[in-house]
């Protein structure tokens, strides 16, 4: 960090007075570059040939718009500009590389690419050379007036709709490229078609990160955040509506709905785990096992021909019983082990997760009692049906849109998430939730204030297990098979990563973390064999850049960013603060 600050000081000393000028020239060049063709050959996605900007060029152009800040003296502008220009630089460089690669050499770059490259470098240098901001951007409020509430409400609704739009664009419309006529002019491991959807995703993700970073440094994110807090009901309603409407935006594409449904299950489980880890501070490395208990319960009583028990329970009952049994397992494991401290509990839960996997793998009548069909798992899980004759496994025509069957499961997920989220929020703001946080922060002090720590920790553990069980029952029907290899240690670790990556103790954090962690490997598919390698590196990078998570809870963010903040049970020991 010191090195970077040093470089910046040198830049400021050399270009300081001219910084704004250099930056503006860069922005101008960049804008011009964006309206010129970047590719010298036809076929590259994002309309790189014609003059109207699209794809990466649009993202760069939007990031260039922050350039007006060179002329404005807003608080936080230097940091905002540094953020925007950095991301513009990375996106431009990536896109140029993609084009060069797809075309087979740098000769294939159009004039626009060179102009934009020159522009973005100047933009970056200009932003780096700006003098440091004097004040941190404040949280702004709208002026009082008759329109204030309306505008605030609209802004809050806008947040939800914006999130939907970002998600829809991010997910991409894989069918669109095929409908336009197949575009597979390149052979080899990475096809042009894959680049269309998936390299663009990378640029899009970078754009969203850059824009959000710049906006938050201007204090706008915090300002809108304050409004959403004020009108939280509006936000919840708008978010729910956006989520419900989502399948209609997908043009009958089952793949994206299937991904959305999988993200839903993953997110619901992550929110549940967030109670255990984020609120109560209990490190659980075997959470997937509780999810598995639910999944197996649902599979066994689904009426599948591969289940040893030929009994078909109604799904509503299955959810309740699956969740309850999962909770009982949580109780059985938690009661004797919850007095263990931090990492001892982690290894016990890891052990429990493995015991669960090994057990369901063995209960097949040859290595143990017959119950789970062993390594084959319970397959052929039938589609859900509602009493009215509604079959989840069939495509349905709704409001004139032909929806693939995956949409049914997606909506089921939305209900599940809504329930889990409500449970989480109610708990977090209750007496119990505050007690959990107290235990997380300092168990000894919490006990001293009269909190029954053992009982409350057990409650968190059991509730987390119950929610995981409920999510598991739904997942069994989405995936249509419950098999032991879906419940490995790696799955637990990824769930935990979703919670930590998103930000511990918050619902948006868990949702965002789950979405990123599920979508990232999906969207990195164009890298083929290198997919997991890049995924691992990205995990390291995110933790390095935002160790407190993408959406940290207020308390946690303060703790981490203010020197001298109090230590908590999950923080490094006091002696190791600030040694980096």
């Amino acid at each position, binding site marked *: 960090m010191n090195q970077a600050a040093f470089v910046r000081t040198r830049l400021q000393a050399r270009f300081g007075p001219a910084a704004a000028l250099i930056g503006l020239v860069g922005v101008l060049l960049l804008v011009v570059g964006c309206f010129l063709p970047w590719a010298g050959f036809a076929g590259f996605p994002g309309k790189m040939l014609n003059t109207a900007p699209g794809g990466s060029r649009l993202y760069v152009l939007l990031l260039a718009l922050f350039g007006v800040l060179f002329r404005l003296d807003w608080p936080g502008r230097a940091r905002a500009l540094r953020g925007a220009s950095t991301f513009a630089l990375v996106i431009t460089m990536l896109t140029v590389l993609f084009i060069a690669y797809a075309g087979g050499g740098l000769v294939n770059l159009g004039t626009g690419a060179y102009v934009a490259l020159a522009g973005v470098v100047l933009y970056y240098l200009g932003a780096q050379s700006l003098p440091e901001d004097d004040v941190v951007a404040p949280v702004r409020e709208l002026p009082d007036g008759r329109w204030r509430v309306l505008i605030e409400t609209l802004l809050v609704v806008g947040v939800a709709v914006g999130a939907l739009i970002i998600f829809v664009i991010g997910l991409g419309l894989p069918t669109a490229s095929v409908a336009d006529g197949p575009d597979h002019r390149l052979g080899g491991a990475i096809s042009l078609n894959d680049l269309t959807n998936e390299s663009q995703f990378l640029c899009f993700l970078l754009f969203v990160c850059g824009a959000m970073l710049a906006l938050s440094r201007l204090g706008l994110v915090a300002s809108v955040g304050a409004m959403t807090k004020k009108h939280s009901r509006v936000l919840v309603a708008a978010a729910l509506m956006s989520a419900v409407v989502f399948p209609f935006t997908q043009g009958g594409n089952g793949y994206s709905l299937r991904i959305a449904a999988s993200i839903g299950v993953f997110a619901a489980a992550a929110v549940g785990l967030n109670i255990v*880890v984020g609120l109560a501070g209990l*490190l659980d490395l075997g959470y997937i096992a509780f999810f598995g208990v639910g999944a197996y319960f649902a599979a066994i009583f689904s009426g599948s021909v591969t289940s040893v028990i030929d009994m078909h329970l109604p799904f509503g009952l299955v959810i309740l019983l699956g969740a309850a049994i999962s909770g009982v397992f949580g109780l059985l494991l938690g009661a004797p*082990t919850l007095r*263990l*401290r*931090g*990492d*001892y509990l*982690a*290894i*016990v839960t*890891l*052990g*429990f997760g*493995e*015991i669960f996997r*090994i*057990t369901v*793998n*063995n209960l097949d009548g040859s*290595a*143990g*009692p017959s119950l789970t069909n062993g390594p084959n798992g319970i397959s052929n899980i039938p589609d859900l049906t509602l009493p009215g004759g509604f079959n989840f496994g069939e495509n349905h025509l709704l409001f004139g849109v032909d929806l693939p069957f995956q949409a049914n499961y997606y909506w089921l997920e939305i209900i599940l998430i809504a329930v889990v989220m409500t449970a989480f929020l109610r708990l977090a703001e209750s007496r119990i939730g505050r007690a959990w946080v107290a235990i997380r922060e300092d168990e000894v002090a919490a006990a001293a204030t009269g909190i029954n720590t053992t009982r409350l920790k057990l409650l968190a553990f059991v509730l987390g297990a119950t929610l995981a069980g409920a999510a598991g029952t739904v997942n069994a029907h989405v995936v249509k098979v419950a098999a032991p290899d879906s419940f490995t*240690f790696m799955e637990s*670790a990824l769930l*935990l*990563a979703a919670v*930590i*990556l998103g930000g*511990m103790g918050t619902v948006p954090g868990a949702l965002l973390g789950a979405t990123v962690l599920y979508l990232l490997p999906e969207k990195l598919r164009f890298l083929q*064999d*290198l997919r*997991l*390698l890049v*995924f*691992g*590196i*990205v*995990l*390291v990078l995110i*933790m*390095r850049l935002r*160790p*407190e*998570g993408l959406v940290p809870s207020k308390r*946690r963010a303060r703790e*981490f960013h203010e020197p001298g903040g109090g*230590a908590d*049970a*999950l*923080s*490094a*020991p*006091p*002696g*190791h*603060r*600030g*040694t*980096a």
Partner: protein
Amino acid sequence: MDLFLQQLVNGTVLGATYGLVALGYTMVYGIVQLINFAHGEIFMLGGFGALTTFLALPTGTPTAVLLPMMLLGGVIVSVTVAVLMERFAYRPLRGAPRLAPLITALGVSIALQELVRNFYPEAKSARNFPQLVDPNRQFSLGGDVTINAPSLLTVVVAVVGMVTLSTYVRRSRTGRAMQATAQDPDTARLMGINTDRLIVTAFVLGAALAAVAGVAQGLRFGQVDFRMGFLTGIKAFTAAVLGGIGNISGAVLGGFTLGLVEVMATQYAPEPFAGGAWKDAWAFVVLIIVLVFRPTGLLGERVAARA
């Protein structure tokens, strides 16, 4: 009786590898309270480092030269990667929430495995490892009980490594500084101990022992592969906790205990819960039972109490 003794030998050999790798976990944990999930990968890289050294040396090099050189090569690779990992992945997170490095460790683990799988020549499936010590050479330990040469070597190396390490930690200046830091990092720093350097030392020592274990593993089985570290890593972590994390003798004891439990469960667990498919479950059941009755492991932990 011979059967029992033979299984005892098998368990001891298995436990020796766990113990060697567990030492790395325990030392790093003792000082920074970090569960370094990527430590298993350091073990794997030790094997590959030795293999690379072997391939680089001219054929016909006598074993007496080859073996130390391979060991050195493995140690160099493991230590280098461990130091880089500490410097670039963990150190920047020193002041971060305690769970952040856990995810970093996971990322590093995935990345290192995939790096070897993708870029080490022909490493997508297992690579042959030179069998310098003939596994068909059996030493009789009385009756029908035997141990083969590379296994014997593994146990000897493990015991030597553990004794050397614990002597080093108990007697040397650096070792005592490590103990001091583990007990109370703040006071240790006030006494003029350079904690940064100590942390690196812990990573280096752990990596060196893991590399030795990796080479021993290669010699025993005649192959190394990119995934060999993951399972061993988890088992070694379990062993470290079983013995009492942060406790060097504990890691060794935990390793041997775990090895013996696995082997004995394969042979003697009540049907139908016997055999390889259940042995890991038994290992974890024993772990949970031990922790329920001794919440800080068999020998107790040696780390600073955290607020």
